[in-house]
């Protein structure tokens, strides 16, 4: 099913997973978190993965993000078989190819926003001055150009998640993986975050996959993949009915900045 939606497209998929199985062993008990998941995602897609709690969403994201490896199955990222890579190569892929956004933000607390955003560039070996500049640009892109020096713990939840998104895009990854990025936010901030993803996807063509169990949030994406008990149960394109963002979105982040200041 998943293939049918995009097979007409003959490009190499960014993500090409075939028959992914993940089994956790807890003593004598085996937990089958994923039981044969096959999924292709092409460059420039904005897709959401939906499913109830415990259905294996995070497990799948960790594998797609090269943080974890499947028990069996084949996973190719940009045509490269990830199974064959060593730890350092995996670290380099996470650094340059993938941007993570987590439910709980995972920012360095007593550290200014701009330094939080710089972190991936440190591991990429980017020099200090260039790092600053790119981090500043990333923060401006998420509408936090006026919060560069604020410490993470001085920002609202929505702002913190935007710092995390800036950190995810600062190294120009080809893929953003967001695991329930709105899970810790009120619905208004959640909406803002979704619009931000939508805009990033539209403007720079970056591939975004995120996980949610909120259909309203998922409606911001063009494709919804459903998962239950470690198996894909549905895959639908929502090309035309994609939920619109508030008007001012087109004018850069005009909407996000005032919302941030109001808090």
């Amino acid at each position, binding site marked *: 099913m998943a293939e049918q939606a995009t097979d007409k497209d003959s490009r190499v998929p960014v993500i090409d997973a075939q028959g992914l199985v993940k089994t956790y062993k807890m003593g004598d008990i085996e937990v089958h978190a994923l039981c044969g998941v096959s999924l292709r995602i092409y460059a420039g897609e904005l897709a959401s993965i939906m499913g109830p709690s415990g259905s294996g969403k995070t497990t799948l994201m960790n594998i797609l*993000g090269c943080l*974890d490896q499947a028990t069996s199955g084949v996973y190719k990222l*940009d045509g490269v078989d990830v199974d064959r890579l060593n730890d*350092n190569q995996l*670290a380099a*892929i996470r*650094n340059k190819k993938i941007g993570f956004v987590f439910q709980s933000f995972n920012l360095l607390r007593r550290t200014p926003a701009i330094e939080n955003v710089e972190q991936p560039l440190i591991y990429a070996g980017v*020099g200090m001055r260039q790092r600053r500049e790119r981090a500043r640009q990333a923060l401006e892109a998420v509408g936090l150009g006026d919060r560069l020096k604020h410490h993470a713990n001085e920002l609202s939840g929505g702002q913190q998640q935007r710092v995390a998104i800036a950190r995810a895009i600062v190294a120009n990854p080809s893929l953003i993986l967001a695991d329930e990025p709105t899970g810790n936010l009120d619905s208004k901030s959640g909406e803002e975050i979704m619009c931000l993803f939508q805009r990033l996807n539209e403007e720079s063509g970056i591939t975004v996959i995120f996980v949610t169990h909120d259909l309203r949030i998922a409606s911001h994406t063009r494709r919804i993949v459903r998962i239950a008990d470690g198996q894909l149960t549905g895959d639908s394109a929502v090309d035309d009915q994609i939920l619109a963002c508030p008007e001012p979105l087109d004018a850069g982040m005009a909407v996000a900045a005032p919302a941030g200041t109001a808090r």
Partner: protein
Amino acid sequence: MQAWQWPPRLGRRGDRMYVIEVIRLSLHTLMANKLRAALTMFGISIGVGAVIALLAIGAGVQSYITQQFSSAGTNLVAVVPGQIQRGGGNPFGPQAALSMGDYRAVAGSIPFLVDTAVDFTGVGNFTFESQNSQVSVSGVTPSYESVRNWRVRIGRFIDDMDYGGRSRVVVLGQTVANDLFPGQNPLDAVVKINNVPFRVIGVMETKGASFLGDQDAVAFIPLTTAQERLFQASAQTKGGDRKVSMIYLQVTDDGARPIVVAAVKQLLHERHRIAADDPDDFSVVSQTELINTFGAVTGVLTIFLGAIAAISLLVGGIGIMNIMLVSVTERTREIGLRKAIGATSRAILGQFLAEAMFLSLLGGLVGIGIGVGGAFAVSKVADIQPEVQLSAIALAVGFSLAVGLFFGIYPARRASRLNPIDALRFE
């Protein structure tokens, strides 16, 4: 967008850059936890301070002892055959010999001498009843007892009568007395030395062991008896004189010592017909005993201080390890995040190791202050003048760095091996 190398690699440039970043990062973290960092550092500071202060005090004690010795007036100058500095001295070798003629010439013509003594030493096989012992036997002049300031404990020393009469009498060192006469009074007993019977007339006071060995494993007989009876064959010189093993000169005072040494050298040069650029066949040594005693004192002191240093630095190191382990646990999520955004295990290892090293290095630097201050404080209350040595400072700081490395490596490895998924899940 840039063209990515695929699969991407973290380049060398990244590695080099990371060294600076790691230092920045670890300083940042330490600053965020100032009190904790300060307390941990202090453990190392105490250790380093203790080493520096104690070594300074040790050096001060050495100087103090030197002073005590010279003021006690043990102004002893010894003349031995051969070249002891070059390790070639062999008192019994044919080419290196001091003779009775040399002794008489020195004793008769050198100024500033209070007294002189001379010995000729060989090895004797002692037997008493069933006891048997190989002992160094010195034939000595009666003056030996006062010149070396080494007295008999019981009985009497060799006197002029013994000397003149080539008597077969012997004074035993404490070790020999203990070996041959366990629990008995050796006075007036007759022992056989190389099968010649000798009467025991005295036992020397204990001198103790030095790093050269047991100084009490000796026996004394009259010089004449040694040269003309017991060791008659080996005591012959080529010129028909008799050999001596060592000449002792008791000098009037410190100032006279260099004059005496120079005069003895000149006299023996003439007597031995040594050309100006030929090596000497004798050595003039001053205050050898002092040096020997030193060796023993310094050795004990060094072991003692080394132990204290090791213990206190060890405790400081355990403090570092403890704090680093706490820190790794507290920052599990941070480690997970860093791995998720591309940190290699090596990068994480470097970050935590740098923190441990910083703690120990800063601790070491503060410790220098404590050590120098402590040494100074001691000089205010005690008679000793501590001497802070640069080498002690270098040693202590080097040690503290090593401690940081040693105790930091385990927590850092633990951090670097964390699985990013588990680390990100960690609450």
